């Protein structure tokens, strides 16, 4: 029944490959025929079935050809390996190049409102990715409920603006603080858990937060969310589109334009993201950062050497959550409207995917992954319902073909004399 399960695949002849592709096509037919071939449609007297066997035929043919090509390719290559071309020294130049590009982006000719808006979106995910990278990439704790802290930050800002009249800059530290506290609250119960259990509990925590936001209508507005969240100001200058006294355009003698506010938002998130990056790099050199990485590699060894695992885990959760809270406050001010719909599990999965695709621990990798993922989503915006389908396929495909992500190579934090990269194939997680 199983398509010839030899691993590594060594097909003596084309016939064997054909046979295997045929079996794969048969399995594909079995899967596709009922689900794709018979669509349930709401008719007048209840549900009816509408056959669509043309799509099944296309799918089965696709699987057959794809499987055959895969075999032919593997036959030549031996195994699936995607090795990005290596240019010595290029790695060091890519990061600063990206940073410079990000700095000047709003002023590049031809870059309009849409591009800057997209830049804001990408940078938000870069910041979330870098924040989660501390928890997942450095400390090795898989957090599937990261979006909960993002939500805590966003709601903290929205509520403090509503009830206390706070602006973004007053609320930002508060959002970070509240999210950090939420991180510690989550951290305490899950201290003893590892790997998969930890992942599921964080997921449950994220769902609990979302359900509470959805049902605590008197405070959070329930499914309707909170609107009218104030926009950010620059030292008291507002960015109202009409201009007028006290506005940014009036103060600097410019023509009032909506783009000013967007560019301002862009620089806020850029500064927040770069600050996150700077913080991560600094933390990695501090004892706590080293403790995180040591814990990721081998928790038992750390405990034996007298490392305080409780504090190490809690700081990772708290700092990661604080960063998500800051990003959440920014999200709230950018949208001026938040509802629980923005904080679903899919968001968490997306951020985890960005971190994993980026190579778990690599700052540059995470930034590139965020650019690729969010940019890709934007490119395929028209294929609305197929977007998530492709996202799932990409996630599986990346894990299967390149489980260490785009930048799998690791640089050791502490070295004797010479700094040498550790190849992705040699990097492995201890406890997970």
């Amino acid at each position: 029944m199983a398509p010839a399960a030899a691993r590594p695949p060594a097909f003596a002849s084309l016939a064997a490959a054909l046979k295997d592709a045929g079996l794969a096509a048969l399995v594909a037919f079995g899967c596709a025929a009922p689900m794709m071939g018979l669509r349930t449609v709401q008719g007048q007297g209840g549900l009816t079935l509408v056959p669509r066997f043309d799509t099944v035929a296309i799918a089965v043919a696709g699987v057959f050809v794809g499987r055959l090509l895969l075999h032919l390719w593997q036959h030549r290559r031996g195994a699936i390996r995607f090795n990005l071309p290596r240019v010595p020294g290029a790695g060091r130049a890519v990061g600063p190049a990206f940073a410079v590009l990000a700095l000047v982006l709003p002023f590049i000719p031809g870059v309009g409102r849409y591009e800057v808006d997209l830049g804001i979106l990408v940078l938000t995910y870069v910041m979330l990715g870098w924040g989660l990278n501390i928890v997942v990439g450095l400390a090795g704790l898989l957090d599937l409920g990261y979006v909960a802290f993002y939500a805590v930050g966003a709601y903290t800002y929205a509520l403090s603006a509503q009830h206390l009249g706070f602006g973004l800059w007053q609320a930002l530290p508060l959002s970070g603080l509240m999210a950090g506290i939420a991180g510690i609250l989550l951290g305490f119960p899950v201290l003893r858990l590892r790997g998969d259990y930890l992942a599921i509990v964080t997921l449950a925590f994220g769902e609990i937060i979302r359900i509470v936001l959805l049902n605590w209508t008197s405070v959070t507005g329930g499914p309707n969310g909170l609107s009218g969240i104030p926009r950010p100001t620059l030292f008291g200058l507002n960015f109202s589109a009409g201009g007028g006294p006290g506005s940014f355009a009036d103060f600097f003698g410019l023509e009032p334009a909506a783009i000013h506010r967007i560019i301002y938002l862009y620089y806020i998130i850029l500064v927040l993201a770069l600050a996150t990056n700077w913080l991560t790099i600094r933390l990695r050199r501090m004892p706590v950062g080293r403790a995180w990485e040591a814990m990721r590699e081998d928790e038992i060894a750390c405990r034996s050497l007298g490392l305080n695992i409780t504090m190490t885990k809690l700081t990772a959760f708290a700092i990661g959550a604080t960063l998500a809270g800051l990003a959440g406050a920014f999200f709230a001010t950018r949208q001026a409207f938040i509802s629980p719909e923005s904080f679903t599990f899919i968001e968490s999965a997306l951020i985890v995917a960005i971190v994993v695709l980026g190579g778990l621990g690599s700052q540059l990798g995470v930034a590139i992954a965020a650019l690729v993922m969010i940019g890709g989503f934007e490119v395929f915006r028209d294929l609305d319902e197929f977007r998530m389908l492709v996202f799932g396929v990409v996630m599986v495909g990346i894990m299967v073909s390149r489980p260490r992500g785009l930048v799998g190579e690791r640089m050791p934090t502490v070295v004797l004399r010479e700094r040498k990269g550790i190849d992705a194939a040699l990097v492995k997680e201890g406890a997970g």
Partner: protein
Amino acid sequence: MEYALQQLVNGLTLGMIYGLVAIGYTMVYGIIGMINFAHGDIFMVGAFSSLIALLGLGMLGITFVPLALVLVLVIAMAIAALYGFTNERIAYRPLRGSFRLAPLISAIGMSIFLQNFVQVTQGARPKPIEPVIRGGLLLASANGFNAVLSWMQILIICTTLLALVVFTLIVARTPLGRAMRACEQDRRMASLLGIDTDRTIALTFVIGASLAAVAGFMYLLYYGVIDFYMGFVAGIKAFTAAVLGGIGSLPGAVLGGLLIGMIETFWSAYFSVQYKDVAAFSVLILVLLFMPSGLLGRDEVEKV
């Protein structure tokens, strides 16, 4: 009192469904130590396959209810088994021996894929059906409230028990069951002794998926409405059940399923319907906190 009795019956029925899904989690966790995150979606695929088979048989004119139900069940189990098998082949087998989080992330991708695949092919709207079996036994009646054990609930409980008996016999008596237990204890040793571990693992997924299809079939009959997103929450709850019962333990999975079903039903009946998922998730957190090895599980020994 009658109200509580009714909740007990409802909780028992729901618990049976969770228990069947939980077995899939616990088996896979026992044998390869990973959480098959897509298992909840296999349950959803099972429910959709049942729906399609039911409608198909209706169009073919097979309206004799017992025969139709048996056929639907067999078809749904076969389709879900195929999905389970394919799932393992594509997303998990290539990652065996990779770092520990890799299969979990791949499973999340698979879960997202399956949900959206069904959404694209079958549409996003919930699918309602007419009740297939009506009526029931009156258990008790007082103050105008009737506690009823419906035929449907009897059917669900009996089908679950039958599936459990068959499944237990497979694990306890057949060569396949022996191979599965051997792989669970020590996969490398089992393969040294001539057990085809890849095949055993694939069959574990197949069995888990067909049990999930039984659960999906009964969910469809019991609630009469399904949608593409149902697998996510149901999957987490079934996983909670598996953890509560002690992961790796088969009777534990069923026991945990029953408890989660009861907790959810009683919580909805006496406290609030909106927070019923919070109740189940909180149980998960509390169990892992105070009783990480569950009710019937073994303590996990940490090896260095």
